């Protein structure tokens, strides 16, 4: 999952980015509203953590810019304003959720996951593709047969690739899109990194008797599909 953090406080911005990266997300940061809008226009994000009070254009202006995108990411607004009127104003402006500073990291993480899921049209935090079960909160992929649950043992990077495919189930995702959602601007990406990850995921699925869930569409990319009957 690729997340954009737009926050003017350097300490808060870097702490959040560090925590989200350690969970396995690709995280980009912006320190002002103008930079946030530019980044949001350049890449496709699953979720945006957006401070309201920003130098230059404020959080509401960033929300307005995000609303013009074809795929609008889920937005969690951060603010020191705790009045009901402020919350209503933020939500009316297009924010999907609202978090008043100070907050717990776990709460922020849960809200980011929730808004990202909703942005892709998924209500549950557990996605199912055939016998494959992907728990977006626990960040675990398992093969479920009857009462038996077998963890595929995916690495954080592999899970991020699978998560990106699962959130877009049935739709092809290009290698470039996968790179965008798995690696942030700080990562060094090798040319075969995505292919290597896909191969590893397929091998682990094969071992768990889940063959053929990830298909290669020539010229389009990869797609996670329900198993053929």
């Amino acid at each position, binding site marked *: 999952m690729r997340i954009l953090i737009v926050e*003017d*406080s*350097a*300490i*808060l911005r870097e*702490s*959040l980015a*560090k*925590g989200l990266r*350690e969970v396995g997300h690709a995280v980009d940061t912006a320190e*002002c509203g103008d930079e946030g809008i530019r980044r949001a226009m350049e890449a496709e994000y699953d979720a945006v953590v957006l*401070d309201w*009070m*920003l*130098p230059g254009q*404020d959080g509401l202006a960033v929300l307005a810019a995000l609303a013009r995108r074809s795929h609008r990411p889920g937005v969690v607004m*951060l603010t*020191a*304003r*705790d009045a009901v009127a402020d919350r209503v104003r933020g939500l009316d402006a297009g924010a999907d959720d609202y978090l*008043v*500073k*100070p*907050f*717990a*990291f*776990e709460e922020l993480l849960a809200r980011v996951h929730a808004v990202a899921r909703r942005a892709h049209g998924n209500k549950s935090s557990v996605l199912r593709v055939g016998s494959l079960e992907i728990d977006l909160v626990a960040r675990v992929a398992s093969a479920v047969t009857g009462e038996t649950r077998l963890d595929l043992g995916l690495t954080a990077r592999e899970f991020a690739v699978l998560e990106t495919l699962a959130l877009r189930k049935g739709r092809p995702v290009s290698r470039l899109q996968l790179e965008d959602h798995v690696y942030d601007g700080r990562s060094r990406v090798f040319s075969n990194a995505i292919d290597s990850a896909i191969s590893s995921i397929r091998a682990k699925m094969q071992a768990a008797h889940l063959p053929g869930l990830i298909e290669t569409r020539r010229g389009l990319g990869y797609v996670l599909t329900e198993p053929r009957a």
Partner: protein
Amino acid sequence: MRSIRAQAIVMSAAAIAVVVLAGMVALDALLARELRTAFDQSLRARAEGLAALVQWDGRTIDFDFSEERTSWVGSRAATGGFAVDCDRGHGWQPIERLGLQADASVANAMADSAVDGLDAGGRSIRSMQVRARVDAETSEQESGETQQSSGEEQAAAALPIRVTVSADRSPLDAQITQTRWLIISSALMIVACGATAVGLAIARGLRPLNQLSEEVAHIEPGSEHARVATTYLQAELRPIASQVNALLDRAHSVIERERGFASAASHEFRTPLAEARMLLEVALRNERSEPEWRATARSSLAVLARMQSLVDALLAAARHARVDMQALREPSIDACAAITKIVDGTCAQLGRPRHSVVVEAPQFVAVECSGAAFESIVGNLVRNALEHGMVDDASPVRIEVLHDRERRRLCISVLNQANGLSHADLDRMFDPLWRKDRARAGDGHFGLGLSVARTLASAFGGSIIASMPDASTIRVDVELPAC
């Protein structure tokens, strides 16, 4: 302290008592005189009656006091009596006496006036003496003789007599005493009734005051919007209620300001708290190396340092608002020299060239202010202008100093670029913790400098107002008392 009602009752009772006492004394004197006069009239009537009983034919005196004696003895045998004397040219000679000795009462009695004295038994009596002349009564035979009588006998044709009567005055004294007690008891009743009436009237008059008191007592901290109703109050109490309402308005405004300040101060802490919490929570989620922990600790300390700066700034602002600045007033400060020094120091602190600020000031103006306060006022304005109102070197901050000798005011105008400020911001820019760009929380600016400057200027009898002479310029005018 006694209540208004008790004081009014005591004072009105005292006033009534004084008036009644004066009236009582006058009435007592009047009634006593009237009683004595009536008593004396009866004495006089009796004396004149006795005098009428004396008959004189020129040679012999004839009288018949038996009836008088009988009635006197019958009614007043115990006290008093009468004496009738005549003067035939040899001094007063007694004709008849009853109950009176020749010396005491008779001698003391004065003609046509009553005197008090004691009888032989030591009892109080009142005596009166009446003098008369008894014309000779002659028969027709005697008339011829009389005509032939000597000149001496003709001279005795009118006989001088004096009649002295005395009577027991105890009935008079008893009547006077009875009247006096009647007056005293009436006076006491009047005082008591008056005091009661005053007490009732005051209690009735104070009832609206009690209602007002109860109404004010019901205004609690949670109901600071409540005000005292003035429509039902008497005209005398309306000013009090209006003043109470005005006081409540002022208190409400202070509470609102303090609430706003506390709320703004609390919000200022939200971001650094969020920073500290994120630093520690994220650090604790995974195993960290020592360098990572050190980095986390350093970042945490930086957050704490900023929070400490905020606390210091808030305390300084609170201190400025609390201290009686008038006590710190210095006789005269050279404002122009002080401004130059402040500008030099601020430019050096901020690393700005000195030509960033252009100062136009007269040679010397003595301002009535504290040196430290003046430095704080001007320093905050210059710092604010340099940090937020200077877009480039081509548009330096301008400081114009004028001395209004007639009004004895020093006028300092600081002009700088508006840099995003609008007319709507002019009223709010002096509010504590206000920043145009609220996101400037991490750069050490808390939005307290202008607020402190205005508080200090007001404390020294001055003012600070902001205006926009054009869309791109902010002008802050400071006025302070000058010599």
